[in-house]
């Protein structure tokens, strides 16, 4: 361990600056790599956040990845993402097809969250927006074939509200009715019970995050608020 005897006490200014510069460069390179990998991790389209989760980018800056929400969940719905799973490492998510959210009245996962990544203001689980169910495959859905499957409709915790059955004529047989499940995006919480219960091998109804499930009208479009925009106003050229 014989060290070279230094003439001066400690290190001199030149050494200090050189070391600092070298370390800064090395650490900046490492940091670039970490930042690139960490921010390239995206939430998969079928990965659902717990109720009350902030918008994804805000969620990632808020979540401490402690797993308190996971441990608070009485139905083992939530899990912490492993490396290279559908969600950024260590953050809570669930797959509706495997275990959907049971929509507990007291929302224990939100109560357990210490960081505010799950908003404490959400106290009514029916107001949750974990995602929006979309009947995505009308070709294989049994109700679209004229059968009375209705499973997604009947398991919906907000039955006749978030999913309704709309009756229409079965053109194929000519004298039967079809009962088409229709999701109301304003009330659907994205709990995923419909996707979980779908009898097909691959669910015809899937829960998607709102930003994928929903379209968005352009700000200049005049038909956003049809209640107040009468045909009259539209014909006149819309002067308010």
């Amino acid at each position, binding site marked *: 361990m014989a060290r070279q005897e230094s003439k001066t006490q400690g290190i001199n200014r030149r050494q200090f600056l050189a*070391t600092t510069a070298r370390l800064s460069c090395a650490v900046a390179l490492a940091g670039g790599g970490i*930042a690139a990998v960490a921010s390239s991790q995206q939430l998969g389209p079928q990965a659902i956040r717990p109720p009350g989760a902030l918008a994804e980018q805000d969620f990632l800056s808020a979540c401490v990845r402690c797993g308190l929400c996971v441990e608070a969940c009485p139905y083992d719905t939530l899990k912490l993402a492993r490396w290279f799973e559908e969600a950024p490492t260590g953050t809570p998510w669930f797959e509706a097809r495997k275990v959907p959210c049971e929509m507990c009245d007291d929302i224990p996962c939100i109560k357990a969250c210490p960081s505010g990544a799950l908003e404490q203001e959400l106290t009514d689980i029916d107001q949750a927006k974990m995602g929006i169910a979309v009947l995505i495959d009308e070709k294989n859905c049994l109700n679209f074939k004229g059968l009375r499957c209705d499973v997604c409709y009947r398991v919906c915790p907000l039955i006749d509200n978030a999913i309704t059955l709309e009756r229409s004529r079965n053109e194929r047989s000519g004298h039967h009715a079809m009962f088409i499940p229709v999701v109301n995006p304003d009330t659907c919480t994205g709990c995923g019970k419909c996707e979980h219960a779908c009898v097909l091998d691959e669910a015809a109804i899937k829960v998607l995050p709102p930003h994928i499930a929903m379209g968005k009208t352009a700000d200049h479009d005049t038909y956003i608020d049809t209640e107040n925009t009468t045909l009259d106003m539209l014909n006149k050229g819309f002067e308010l």
Partner: protein
Amino acid sequence: MSTAKVEKARFADDAIRELGWWKAHRFLLLRRASQLGLLALFAIGPLWGLWLLKGNLSSSLLLDTIPMADPLVTLQLLTSGHVPEASLLIGAAIIGLFYALMGGRVFCSWVCPVNMVTDLAAYLRRRFALPRTPELPRQLRYFMLALVLLLPVLTGVAAWEWLNPVPVLYRAVLFGAGAGLGLLVAIFLADLLIVERMWCSHLCPSGALFALLGKLSPVKMTAVNAKDCNNCMDCFVVCPERQVLKPALKGQSPIITDSDCTQCGRCIDVCAKRVFQYKNRFTFQDNPLQKSPRIAKKAENEQ
């Protein structure tokens, strides 16, 4: 140092003969019990439903009432611009205060599970007398700390938590995220084959933050009986931060003031001459034990 090895059959033989096997491994075993015990306290919740401690080291809840949180994670949230719930801030304050009193790097040696991995690598290095490779500068960890706190500012996300091995290990045990263990294998191999104590002593930003927190801690390791030191070098062999030892053994004050010291107590274990003790540095300063240790033949200019 290698000549000292040839003379002795095995490392710390003197201490074992002098103090007995238990006393020569006392703090090592207590530390392992502490590290594994804490992990077990977290694990019995998900395993058997005994919820003494919920969460993990990032943030947890003791007996459903007392919040605790990792100061580094909390700082990352704050630098990312998110204002967390009060419970997280209180939790971080509780943990921060605790380690400010205990000596910050008590976390590293008595709590952090990664310590077991790096200690194993260091043990194997010693057993197989692997050559000491050029060391990285130890202040690298403070640059890492700065980086970890800067990344959330630049990216908006707590980026370090993707890689941080402490929660990775805890999550692997508590939530079955086993793939993260590959990271620990990487740390083990880096410690074993690249640079001695590469992770804990040179890179880990958590250790750097805790070292800063522990600067003023009253609890310090001291070389109270530095006059009895016979230069056997066992403490230097085993100490994870051996640069902190020389000023205490050969300098003005027997207190190890350098907060790089993890206060692991292994130097107490391996010293047959009972040179080292845990002390409260304030009561110790009142007590004029020995101002100038004899061993220092020449003045050493360290710090």
